[in-house]
């Protein structure tokens, strides 16, 4: 959690940690998706971010959700944990 918050604060992204969690979960409610799709959603919500920053945020939030057992990853594909 600390590293995701640090990343959010470092790049002054317009998200809370919870908002990023909710974004990922909303995406996965529609089915498995690619990391790049999550990054694109992040960038849609904060258009001051470039793609690299969005992807960095996506990777960071997925790391947290993987550790908590809420998502699983297979390469670039992300699934809701069953």
């Amino acid at each position, binding site marked *: 959690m600390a590293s995701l918050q640090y990343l959010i*604060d470092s*790049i*002054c992204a317009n998200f809370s940690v919870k908002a990023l969690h909710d974004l990922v979960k909303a995406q996965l409610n529609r089915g498995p998706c690619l990391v790049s799709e999550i990054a694109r959603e992040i960038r849609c919500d904060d258009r001051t971010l470039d*793609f*690299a920053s969005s992807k960095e945020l996506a990777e960071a939030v997925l790391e947290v959700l993987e550790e908590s057992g809420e998502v699983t990853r297979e390469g670039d594909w992300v699934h809701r944990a069953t």
Partner: protein
Amino acid sequence: MWNQFGTNAYEGLLAETATITKYNNELINAYFARPLGPGPFPGIILVHHLPGWDEFYRETARRFAQHGYAAICPNLYQRFGDGTPEEVAATARGQGGVRDESVIGDCEAAMRYLKALPTSNGRVGIIGTCSGGRHSFLVACRVNGFSAAVDCWGGRVVMSEQELTVQQPVAPIQYTKDLQCPLLGIFGNDDTNPSPEMVERHEAEIKKHGKTYEFHRYDGAGHGFWYYDRTAYRPQQAMDAWQKVFAFFSQHLQG
């Protein structure tokens, strides 16, 4: 600061985009807001944050002008092209961001612009939030002529060797010994960049060099707690911090 005007008193201001010449004779845009009248008025440079030269900074410039300051916010992202503030900020980020030396040059040019105004009282302060806070401190250390500086939650004032980049080759804290004006720091204790520990290290360095400063730290506030367009906004802490900023600028720019 808030609601201190007399309801029978005249008040007017002018706010518009302007063009200033920076150190290498390039032209950059700026947003300039000033009180109407002959003055003299002190000046303030606003150093915008990572999300860009945006609406928040235009409104903040007008706020300072309403309170008696000639406020200018140079477009530090000028060289990344034109578009909406968000588009330009994304472009700037994609190209690694703005170089510290470029920001220093732009702010020095803005200071000269303000001091050259016939309405100037000769004193100029500088303030920034987020990366702008970091830059405000850096510029106040690297450029002579400022009478006050405000760093609002500037992260990466304290930087490790691994964090240094081509755009940011030296940690601003290394320049603390060269700070020539009083410094006000505004920080949220829930912020992680800068964290409370980083703020303490910053403060320790300022004390070590005997600089004039005051730091204010706010519980229940994180990064960007002034931003009323974001969920990070904390109105009570923000209003108190604004009072501190206006008192600080009044003491050092108007007194």
